[in-house]
């Protein structure tokens, strides 16, 4: 509870603390990861399996009572070209988006990005003539 929740909470005073040795263990794969991303910002998902934990309520703001696992479902692209991971809470279906960090698992990121193209709901041959 203690280190896990603290690691996910985006406290502004800890962002630039270089000497911070905070760690949290992933709720899905159990990997112990440092709470600090390579670019110095606070991490909110596991870099190995990209799963997160539902600790912030984005509808009403403030901490969430859910605390359940959030699985990555989609890649969103900002206008700047940066990628965001869209997480979905497996318990209450809440959606959040978080920026990717540089040491995130690239294989899972690419797999999520090309996932819609694997099973298109319409034939893609028609686009060849456009």
């Amino acid at each position: 509870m203690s280190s896990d929740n603290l690691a996910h909470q985006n406290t502004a005073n800890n962002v630039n603390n270089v000497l911070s040795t905070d760690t949290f263990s992933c709720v899905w794969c159990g990997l112990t990861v440092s709470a600090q991303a390579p670019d110095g910002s606070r991490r909110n998902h596991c870099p190995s399996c990209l799963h997160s934990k539902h600790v912030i309520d984005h509808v009403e703001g403030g901490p969430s009572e859910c605390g359940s696992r959030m699985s990555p479902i989609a890649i969103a692209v900002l206008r700047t070209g940066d990628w965001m991971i869209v997480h979905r809470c497996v318990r209450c279906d809440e959606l959040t988006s978080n920026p990717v960090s540089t040491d995130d698992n690239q294989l899972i990121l690419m797999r999520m990005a090309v996932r819609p193209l694997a099973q298109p709901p319409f034939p893609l041959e028609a686009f060849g003539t456009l």
Partner: protein
Amino acid sequence: MPRRTQPGNRKNRHRPQRYKDVLHGNGGHRANDFRCVGCRLDVSLVAPGTAHRNHCPNCLVSLHVDDRVPGDRASECHGRMEALSLTVRPDGEWMIIHHCLSCGELSANRIAGDDNALVLMRLALRPLQDGSVASSALLTAL
């Protein structure tokens, strides 16, 4: 352009308006239709493949009217929601993730059978559009 003057037909000039049994207003035959906030298309609520249409089939723009439960109409935001990305359910069905431009809320909606396929494809290909991220990801993964 209607004719303002009707020469030679002066006696029928003040004919009372005919009674119309089709009501176009509230409760009429288009009571549930909506006009898209993005492209102003008049959209019928009858959609192939889904029972609840919640986004424009032409530009995929939606309106933030529901709170946590779909269909509850409890949100006070009423901002415009634009399609942010696509995700796939485990059964292979595409879902559009909408992003509220007013409050930043995200929501996932099923696609309908008459959604614009070109816009859907552009949305699906958007992560691969910018070559730098995608190619670096592929080079490190392989």
